[in-house]
């Protein structure tokens, strides 16, 4: 008996898997990251060329699909603003999840039409796994997109009995999937399972507030990874299994990191509806009663221009106002005057992991000037001015002191230890979590109200005029 020769395509898939792993490896340094991304893209190209040799009958289906998908993908990928990156990533993630579910659906149809009615466990099980996870990821990502794009409110949406409804839908998913696996009326129950999974995807993102988005975006990324790997089980294709596993591991790791940075478990994020108790009844206005001190851009300019060290604390507000370029300009002006400028980046600042880093990189801020929470926190004591730009909950001292606060225990940036604190904010409305921030009552704190970009621009001209 001669050995069965390997299919040449499998060599190509092996090359792809190696290139993906190396690509991710090179992502560990900003200097080599671009090369890493290109290695991964090359790996993808090899796999695509290889698969096109595999007995395709309907060329027009593939042709139209790739041309249209690539055109939309490349166009939107180029056109999207850096501030809109989180929703873009969510959208592409959803596309991947939806594709995985459809591949599994197609495979099931094919098997059902070809077979004698009873499908083996391996196949039905992996098909259900792919379909359910893919569908949840698809619907969840679309919801995350809608929230991030602010088509719908970014605040948690909660209603009585929410957990019960979610549990019921989950049960429906499990039961109908089991029926498919047991070959009971396969296609009917398959449809039920798929629809229920889609509904579940929508429902589980509904109660997630904006501040928790970094966790959810990572989690959905990991879901799509697992769905891709499960597609590999369905099609007995190792390159899908390996790639999916890499993405699943990456997404899970990031999810755990984000959860740690908020001192919350994943279950708490999913089922906790952050701060919803306080937001439900017009708590937004309650902040106005706080005893705050408001200042002008000229006051701020005088303060920062004569400081030894200024730490800039960016948050989602900076992204919304697209103020990153103005911030960089201010930093340039200050550095010219001999002021040391550092940036303090909280792991969950913004709407996705590393969101602030990308925005500041876009504004040409060198990455060496960005400091992680643990590295920068001891610095605040030695800092003359902490400039908080559109960040709120990640600076809230209640997380350290107030046991009743919903964010109690969350590691925060110790902004309140700086000699002076300037907070740029649009109004006194609480942040996404809907929690009052005692930082604003601090006698050391001065508030500069208005659009962050306009405020910073005014400060820059005031500094220049000094």
């Amino acid at each position: 008996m001669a050995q069965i020769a390997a299919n040449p395509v499998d060599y190509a898939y092996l090359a792809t898997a190696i290139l993906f792993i190396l690509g991710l490896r090179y992502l560990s340094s900003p200097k080599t990251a671009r090369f890493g991304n290109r290695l991964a893209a090359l790996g993808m190209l090899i796999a695509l060329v290889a698969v096109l040799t595999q007995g395709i009958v309907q060329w027009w289906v593939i042709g139209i699909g790739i041309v249209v998908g690539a055109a939309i993908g490349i166009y939107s990928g180029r056109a999207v603003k850096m501030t809109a990156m989180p929703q873009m990533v969510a959208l592409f993630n959803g596309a991947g999840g939806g594709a995985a579910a459809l591949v599994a659906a197609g495979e099931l149809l094919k098997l059902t039409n070809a077979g004698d009615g009873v499908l083996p466990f391996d196949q039905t099980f992996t098909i259900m796994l792919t379909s359910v996870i893919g569908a949840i990821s698809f619907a969840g990502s679309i919801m995350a997109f809608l929230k991030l794009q602010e088509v719908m409110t970014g605040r948690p949406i909660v209603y009585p009995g929410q957990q019960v409804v979610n549990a019921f839908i989950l049960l429906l998913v499990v039961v109908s999937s089991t029926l498919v696996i047991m070959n009971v009326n396969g296609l009917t129950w398959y449809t039920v399972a798929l629809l229920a999974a889609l509904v579940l995807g929508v429902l589980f993102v509904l109660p997630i507030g904006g501040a928790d988005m970094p966790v959810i975006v990572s989690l959905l990324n990991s879901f799509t990874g697992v769905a891709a790997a499960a597609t590999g089980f369905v099609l007995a294709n190792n390159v899908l299994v390996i790639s999916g596993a890499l993405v699943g591991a990456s997404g899970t790791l990031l999810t755990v990191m984000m959860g740690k940075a908020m001192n919350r478990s994943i279950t708490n994020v999913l089922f906790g509806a952050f701060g919803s108790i306080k937001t439900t009844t017009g708590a937004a206005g309650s902040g106005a009663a706080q005893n705050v001190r408001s200042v002008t851009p000229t006051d701020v300019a005088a303060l920062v221009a004569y400081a030894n060290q200024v730490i800039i604390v960016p948050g989602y507000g900076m992204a919304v106002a697209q103020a990153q370029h103005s911030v960089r300009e201010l930093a340039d002006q200050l550095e010219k005057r001999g002021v040391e400028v550092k940036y303090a980046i909280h792991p969950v600042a913004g709407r996705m992991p590393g969101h602030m880093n990308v925005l500041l990189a876009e504004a040409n801020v060198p990455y060496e000037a960005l400091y992680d929470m643990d590295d920068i926190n001891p610095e605040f004591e030695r800092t003359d001015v902490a400039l908080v730009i559109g960040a709120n909950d990640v600076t809230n001292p209640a997380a350290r002191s107030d046991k009743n606060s919903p964010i109690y225990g969350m590691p925060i940036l110790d902004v309140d230890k700086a000699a002076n604190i300037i907070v740029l904010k649009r109004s006194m409305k609480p942040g996404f979590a809907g929690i009052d921030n005692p930082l604003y009552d601090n006698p050391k704190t001065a508030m500069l109200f208005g659009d962050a970009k306009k405020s910073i621009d005014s400060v820059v001209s005031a500094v220049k005029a000094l």
Partner: protein
Amino acid sequence: MSAQLLAELTVFILAVFVGIEVISKVPTTLHTPLMSATNAIHGIVLVGAILVAGTFDAPFNQIVGVILVILASLNVFGGFTVTERMLQMFRPRTPQPQKKDGD
């Protein structure tokens, strides 16, 4: 469980460990590009999409097939484009101190 599924599961588990090993070395600065890159990588479902959609017969299935391939391609091409754009922006501190004369 068939021997084949077990073999694939083995590959999966090992790849998860490789993934954790490789990805835990990525600094926080690069977390967004990392997410975006892994996002593009799971676009590998396009391979599965092509395998499945390329053999659809019925017209309805073919329409679904086109949608399927569009979704997966969107994921691949959009993902790599966006990652490339992000990474273009990461550059080290240049030693040249602001060359603006005048004051």
